[in-house]
């Protein structure tokens, strides 16, 4: 199958991409590996003429760090929660959106709107939605001055149906880990939706209508149509959004800063929600490029394993 003409043609077509990748991606990776294996490497100290010995101290220090396991757990947990939820939700929206006629275009536009807003502004809005200023115990020392809109809604339903006031401390001082994670999940899912909807809807609209028409003639049920036609034909797109979702999920950082700020957790527990990338940033901030690189390589290893797993599964399931 492999003829020589195709060989050189392929490399010709790939050459611009390869050249650029070599310079701006591969070389930085090599440099990262180099820094990871120079004990306590620091760019500024190197510029000052200091030398570093070859070794694995960066790795041992990363693994032994007090916060490392927490960072790993947070990252994994957010990934496992947000990828399935956002994919399902995006699929549901894409399918329902594809099934309607009136309002379709308007709704479609709305679902992409988050893409054209600044992520900083959105983070601030979400924080405000879940925020409680002044804490909510209502004791002498912690007076509620405002509760975010989410609590207003919860409180409304709670007082209507049970007659009791109910407020949840989502992200403020003294909030619990579970509530923090719920907020993060909501925000990350919200953030991930537009892209996933865009891809899935694009996929759906390229599925030929005749499949559905035929199914309808045969009287096939909606659920069956969904599982037997839509999902298989959409599987390349689904595989794509799931794989990139996992990769993105493991690199989660900015959304947590968006909600919790640089504190990476509620005020009384700094770094509680820190992630792997957050750990890397911390090291960079302190000019420990060596340790940052080591942490990045560890993260890389984890993502690699997960992605290979994903590819292995999708190879069995994806239909081209």
């Amino acid at each position, binding site marked *: 199958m492999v003829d020589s003409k195709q060989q050189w043609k392929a490399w010709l*077509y790939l050459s611009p991409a390869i050249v650029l990748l070599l310079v701006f991606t591969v070389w930085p990776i090599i440099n990262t590996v180099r820094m990871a294996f120079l004990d306590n490497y620091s760019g500024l100290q190197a510029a000052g003429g200091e030398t570093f010995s070859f070794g694995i101290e960066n790795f041992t220090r990363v693994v032994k760090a007090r916060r490392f396991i927490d960072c790993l757990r947070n990252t994994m947990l957010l990934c496992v929660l947000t990828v399935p939820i956002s994919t399902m939700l995006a699929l549901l929206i894409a399918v329902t959106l594809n099934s309607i006629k009136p309002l379709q275009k308007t709704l479609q536009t709305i679902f*992409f709107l988050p893409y054209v807003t600044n992520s900083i*502004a959105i983070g601030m809005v979400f924080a405000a939605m879940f925020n409680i200023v002044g804490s909510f115990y209502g004791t002498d020392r912690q007076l509620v001055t405002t509760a975010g809109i989410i609590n207003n809604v919860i409180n409304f339903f709670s007082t209507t149906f049970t007659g009791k006031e109910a407020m949840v401390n989502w992200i403020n001082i003294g909030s619990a880990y579970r509530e923090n994670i719920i907020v993060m999940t909501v925000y990350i899912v919200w953030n991930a939706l537009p892209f996933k909807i865009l891809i899935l809807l694009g996929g759906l609209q390229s599925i030929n209508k005749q499949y559905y028409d035929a199914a309808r003639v045969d009287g096939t049920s909606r659920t069956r149509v969904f599982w037997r036609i839509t999902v298989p034909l959409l599987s390349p797109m689904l595989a794509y959004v799931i794989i990139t979702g996992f990769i993105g999920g493991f690199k989660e950082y900015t959304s947590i800063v968006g909600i919790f700020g640089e504190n990476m957790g509620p005020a009384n527990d700094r770094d509680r929600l820190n992630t792997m990338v957050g750990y890397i940033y911390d090291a960079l901030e302190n000019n420990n490029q060596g340790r940052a690189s080591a942490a990045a390589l560890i993260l890389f290893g984890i993502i690699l394993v997960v992605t290979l797993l994903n590819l292995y599964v999708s190879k069995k399931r994806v239909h081209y």
Partner: protein
Amino acid sequence: MSDENKEIRNDIKAPKSTADSSYAAKAVMSEKDLKKTAAAQTVMQILVKFLVYAFLIIMAIIVLFPFYWMINSSLKTLSEYREVVPTFWPRKIMFSNYLEAYNAANLGRLFFNTVIVGVVSTLLSLVITVLSAFAFARLEFKGKNLLFAGLLATMMIPGELFTITNYTTVTNLGWRNTYTVLIVPFLVSVFYIYLLRQNFLQIPNELYLAAKVDGTSDIKYLWRVMIPLSLPTLISITILKMMGAWNSYIWPRLVANDEAHRLITNGLRNAFKDTTGDVNYPVQMAAVALVSFPLFLVFVFLRKYIMKGVSRSGIKG
């Protein structure tokens, strides 16, 4: 095409009417003297429609809320914005924030720079992506799978680490404070190549082989067949790339922060600090809204093309 897919295709005996088969289906139903079932089904259908709309509209409201909040904030005074209990509509509407935002930054120049960088990098990036995706999807060469896996692997390294090394590279190349430095380093996106390759793979290989027999060149085939068929994906890529240029911040600030090449996000961030180094958030929100508006227009405009692209892809079935 997988076996299962072919199976589905074989199941389809071309529908009798292609005009509007749902009516056709209903017509068949009513002929079958099952009025009661039909009525029940209509009720079901209406109910389902209702639920579908309710779901979509609720989701739309959730999605829209931050957008509304941005506009709400952009119209407030700084002191109202800083209030502990946020107001849902400004007590005093400050359209002047928008004027201030426009004047404070050299917005014309910023727009110009951003558009140049956005358009040029999108075009070049599309060319590179199409060629690479084509090679991965259609051509056979040694080490293809290995190379592709290698590309995918590069997506997994946090980009922040590249910055340090790339900064050194572009400085050594003498690219600082040029358009080049804003365009070239990020032309190749493994994401896009992957996305487009998946799309190309869906186009039956038979077409390519037929084109080969006709003596059509690769480029012509790409232009005539592959590109029209994957237009939705290409447009998605265009949107994403333009967005990237519009929102990029850390890299441009590092490498091209002079008056002549500064991009919009950097310009806006710097323009609204008041004397204490605090940010005047309402004015900044106004600026963000101003900046988002052209993108919003571009999107609404391009959406038609997405539709067209989709309707043209009559290749399958």
